[in-house]
C-alpha cells in the first residue's frame, strides 16, 4: 500500500517569500526517503510542515490515509511520527535517561492523579519506561551517561540522546532534521550505519540532510527541492545523473 506518507501540493509563504511552492511526493513504508537541495531551498520548512510545528497555507499531508495536515505537533507524535531537531532540543536540567523516557509520553497514559498517588498503573509504566529508555540509550552507546544532566554531554552525544528519545516510542515514521550537522567524520559514519539498520527493524525514515555521502549511501528515494519547488525525484543513481540537480549544486557549466 504505497499510501504510507503522501504530500499533496504543500505550500507555505512567509510574507512575500514563497518558501514551499506546492510540493508533492509520496513515500513508501520501510524506506529511507531524503529531501535535499541547496541552502534556502525550503527543506526545513517542508519538514516542519509535515511535523506540524508550522501550519501550511495550502496542500495536504496524508499518513496511512489519514489527513494530518493541520494537526498540532503533539497529535502528530501520537500517530507515531517522531522528529529530531536541527538544533538539538533536549531538557538540559533533566538526565539523559529522563529525556529519553519523555519520548514514551505518547505511548503511556498514567495521569496527574495516578502519578501523585504513585498508583500501580503509574509504577508499572514507570518501570517499563525506565527499562525501554535504558535499552534505547544502550543502542546509541550512552548507557553509562544515563544519569548525567544532558547539558553536560558533548554535542555529538546530545544528538544521540535525541535520536534515542525519538526511537524509544518505536515510531512508524522518523523525521530526521539534518542529523549529521555538527558531527565529525567518525560520528557521521556511526550515524549512517545506525540509520540504515533502523530500516532493517521495519522503520521508515524521512531525512533532510546536506551531507551528500550520508544521503547517497542510505537513501532509497530522494526528492530535490530548489527555491521551494520539487525539481527532481528518484533513486540516488538517477539523482546523481540528473542535469538539473547537477546545475543547482555545481552551477552553470560555462563551456
Amino acid at each position, binding site marked *: 500500500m504505497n499510501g504510507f506518507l503522501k504530500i499533496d501540493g504543500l505550500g507555505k509563504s512567509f510574507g512575500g517569500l514563497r518558501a514551499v511552492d506546492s510540493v508533492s511526493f509520496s513515500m513508501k513504508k520501510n524506506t529511507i526517503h531524503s529531501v535535499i537541495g541547496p541552502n534556502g531551498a525550503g527543506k526545513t520548512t517542508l519538514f516542519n510542515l509535515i511535523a506540524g510545528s508550522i501550519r501550511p497555507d495550502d496542500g495536504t499531508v496524508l499518513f496511512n490515509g489519514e489527513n494530518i495536515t493541520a494537526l498540532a505537533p503533539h497529535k502528530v507524535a501520537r500517530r507515531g511520527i517522531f522528529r529530531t531537531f536541527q538544533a538539538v532540543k533536549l*531538557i538540559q536540567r533533566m538526565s539523559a535517561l529522563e529525556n529519553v523516557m519523555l519520548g514514551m*509520553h505518547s505511548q503511556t497514559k498514567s495521569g496527574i492523579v495516578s*502519578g501523585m498517588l504513585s498508583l500501580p498503573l503509574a509504577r508499572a*509504566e514507570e518501570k517499563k519506561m525506565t527499562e525501554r529508555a535504558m535499552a534505547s540509550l544502550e543502542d546509541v552507546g550512552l548507557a553509562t551517561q544515563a544519569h548525567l544532566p544532558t547539558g553536560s554531554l558533548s554535542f555529538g552525544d546530545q544528538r544521540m540522546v535525541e535520536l534515542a528519545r525519538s526511537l524509544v516510542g518505536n515510531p512508524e515514521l522518523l523525521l530526521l532534521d539534518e542529523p549529521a550537522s555538527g558531527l565529525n567524520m567518525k560520528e557521521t559514519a556511526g550515524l549512517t550505519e545506525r540509520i540504515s539498520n533502523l530500516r532493517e527493524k521495519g522503520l521508515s525514515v524521512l531525512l533532510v540532510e546536506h551531507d551528500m555521502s550520508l544521503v547517497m549511501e542510505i537513501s532509497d528515494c530522494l526528492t530535490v527541492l530548489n527555491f521551494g519547488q520539487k525539481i527532481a525525484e528518484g533513486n540516488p543513481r538517477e539523482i546523481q545523473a540528473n542535469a538539473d540537480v547537477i546545475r543547482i549544486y555545481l552551477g552553470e557549466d560555462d563551456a
Partner: protein
Amino acid sequence: MKKKDYTPLVAFMSVSILIPFLTNIFQVNFFLTQLTMSAYYALAALGLCLLLGYAGQISLGQAGFFAIGGYTSAILSKAGLDPRLAFVASVLLAALVAILIGMPVLKLKGHYLAMATLGFGVVIEKIVRGTPALGGADGISNVPSFTILKDLRITGGKADRLSNYAIAFVILSIVLILMINLLSSRSGRALRSLHGSEDAANAMGVNVANTKLGAFVIAAVLAAIAGSLMTHLNGSIGPGEANTMKSIRYLSIVAVGGLSNFTGTLAAGIILNFLSLRGVFGIYDDAVFGAILVLVMIFAPNGFGFAFPARFGKGAKK
C-alpha cells in the same frame, strides 16, 4: 530499579517532628501557632514553586487563589455548612476558576502571562474588598473552627496549639509526598519539560496546553487549601490576603527557596513567614521581601537555599 528520592521528605518530617519537642524543652510553645500559620503560607508557596519553578509559568496572582479558598470556606461555614463540605467546595471552586482563567491566560508567555495573573489577583482583591456580602474591607471574622475528627479541629485557641501544628505539618508532608511522586511520574516529567523546551515537549507528544493548565490548577488548589485552613485557624480573613504584595511575597519565597526546589521553598516559606509574623522585621517587613528578590536574582537567579539535587528520580547508585 530507580527509587524516588525521598530524602527531602525525610529531612522535612524529622525537623517538623523535632520542633515541638524543642519548643517544649525551652518553654516556647507559643512559637507553634506562628509556625502553623507559616506552614499554610508555605503550602501556597509550594503551589507556586511547582508552577513557576518546575513548569516555568510565572504567576503574580497566587494570593488570589488563597483568598478564593479562604473566603469560600468562611462564607459557607458561617452559613452553617459543615466546614468539611465548605473546604471541599472552596477547593473545587478554586480549581474551576483556575481552569476558566488558566485556559485562556496560559496561551500567553512571559510578561503577558505575568500581567494577566497580576490582573487576576487585583480583580479578586477588588471584588472581595468591594462586596458588602463578603465583609467588604473589614473581611469576615469569627469563622467557626474546622472539626476534622471528633476532637481534632483546626482553630486558633491556645489549647489547640500542638494539634494544629501537627495538622498543618502532616498536610505539608502529604503534599510533599504527592509532589515528589508527581515529579518523578510521567506527567511530572512532562510538566518539567515545559521549563526546558516547549518545542521538544510538543514533539514528544506532550499536550503543552493541558500540562500547563494542570500545573496551574494544582498551584491554585494548594493555595485554596492553605487559604481555607488558615481562615479556620485564624477565625477570620481579610481582603489583604488577595493583595498583590502577598503574591510578590510568595514569589520571593519560591525564589529564595531555589525556584525549582520543594524543600527550599518549604524551608524559606516557613522561616521567612515565621520571622515576619513575629514582627522581627518591624516596619521593614515588605522591604525584606523586596531585598530578597533583588539579592536572589543577583547571586543565584536559579535560586540557592536548601537545594537538594534538583533532579528527582536519581535512581541507581552513582
